[in-house]
């Protein structure tokens, strides 16, 4: 398109195209400190850097804000309290009082994903929640943990999950495979939902951004349109960053509920 509209020289156009990076370049892992232990690559990468940033950011937000222990909370303390009560209520509404011991884990899950998503919105940052291995690892921990809790609470009776009580025995032929597929697809849907949302969102942002930059060099006025669109998408992405953290957490709560109460 840039070539069609024609710059003053063909060379300049080619240079500009090269400067606009590929939309998937933002997902590339770049080692910062290469580390290998026993043949396993555990290099400290840009992904790890932003995980550490999320940990530091979340911890600072939640500890520094309540340092004054004010009776009437200030702005930051309110944020910390709202996050705390948001997850506490979510857990209570979805799991009940039995979910209380898992509150720190659910809260950590939410904060980690939320900070990964939101910090990833910063230009030049890295969104580790856009990596399927990261989201899948978290989803797998939730899935395995929930299954262990289910068996620990109900023993073999937990297998009833795959065949509801009261259903005619003959329906087992259909019901059991369906229930098993739905149960075992949980970690994948959980992982892919977050990964796909973050990846696609960031690709759209990058493509639109590249489009704005390409147009800006040629005509200023038409560039306003994609820029306005980009602005809207950015707002939407912030919403999605929060929403996906919420969805990831509430689904974990629902799975926990199933393990504790069985349907």
């Amino acid at each position, binding site marked *: 398109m840039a070539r069609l509209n024609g710059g003053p020289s063909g060379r300049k156009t080619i240079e500009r195209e090269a400067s606009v990076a590929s939309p998937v370049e933002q997902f590339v892992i770049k080692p910062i400190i290469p580390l290998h232990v026993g043949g396993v690559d555990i290099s*400290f990468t840009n*992904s*790890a850097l932003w*995980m550490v940033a999320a940990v530091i950011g*979340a911890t600072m937000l939640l500890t520094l804000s309540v340092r004054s222990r004010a009776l009437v909370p200030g702005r930051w303390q309110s944020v910390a309290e709202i996050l*705390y009560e948001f997850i506490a209520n979510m857990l209570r509404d979805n799991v009940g009082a039995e979910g209380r011991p898992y509150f720190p884990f659910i809260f*950590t899950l939410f904060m980690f994903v939320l900070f990964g998503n939101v910090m990833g919105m910063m230009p030049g940052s890295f969104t580790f929640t*856009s990596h399927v*291995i*990261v989201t899948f690892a978290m989803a797998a921990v939730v899935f395995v943990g929930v299954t262990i809790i289910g068996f620990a609470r109900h023993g073999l009776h937990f297998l009833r999950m795959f065949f509801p009580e009261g259903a005619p025995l003959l329906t087992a032929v259909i019901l059991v495979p369906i229930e098993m597929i739905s149960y075992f697809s949980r970690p994948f849907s959980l992982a892919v939902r977050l990964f796909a949302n973050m990846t696609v969102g960031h690709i759209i942002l990058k493509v639109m951004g590249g489009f704005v930059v390409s147009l800006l060099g040629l005509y200023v006025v038409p560039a306003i349109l994609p820029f306005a669109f980009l602005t809207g998408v950015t707002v939407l992405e912030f919403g999605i960053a929060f929403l996906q953290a919420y969805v990831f957490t509430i689904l974990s709560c629902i799975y926990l509920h199933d393990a504790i109460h069985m349907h």
Partner: protein
Amino acid sequence: MPQFDPAFFAPQLFWLLVTFVTLYALMALVALPKIGAVLDERQRKIDDNLAKATALKAEAEAAVAAYEKALAESRSHAHRVIKEASDRVAQQAEERNREISAHLAAQIKAGESRIAVAKTAALANVRQVADEVAGATVARLIGAAPDRARLDAAIAVALKEQGS
């Protein structure tokens, strides 16, 4: 896409484990107890204040009830006092009235008797004056003293005709 390159799986998984466990420890041991304590403290204070407010309200209501009771009592007391006083005043007034009217009646009676006495005396004087005037007039007219008995009779008739 770099996401599907297995070469990046191991380092990400390792650092995910490290950071997630760190965040879990920080949340579970530091941040959440802190925020929880702040929230509990606030809830405790709110409950405390609410209880205090309830107690104060009950106290205020008791005070109002006591005040109203005292008010009603003093009002009835005042009524009683006013009634007693007005009764006493009415009684005294009646007594005084009776006394005064009795006194006045006595005075009137005395006055009447005095008037009666004065009247009798005056009437007697009138008789005497008439007697004398008639005697003198007759003597002047006929040049001789009239008969005493006839004069008396004529005067009596005249006085009777005058009606007094």
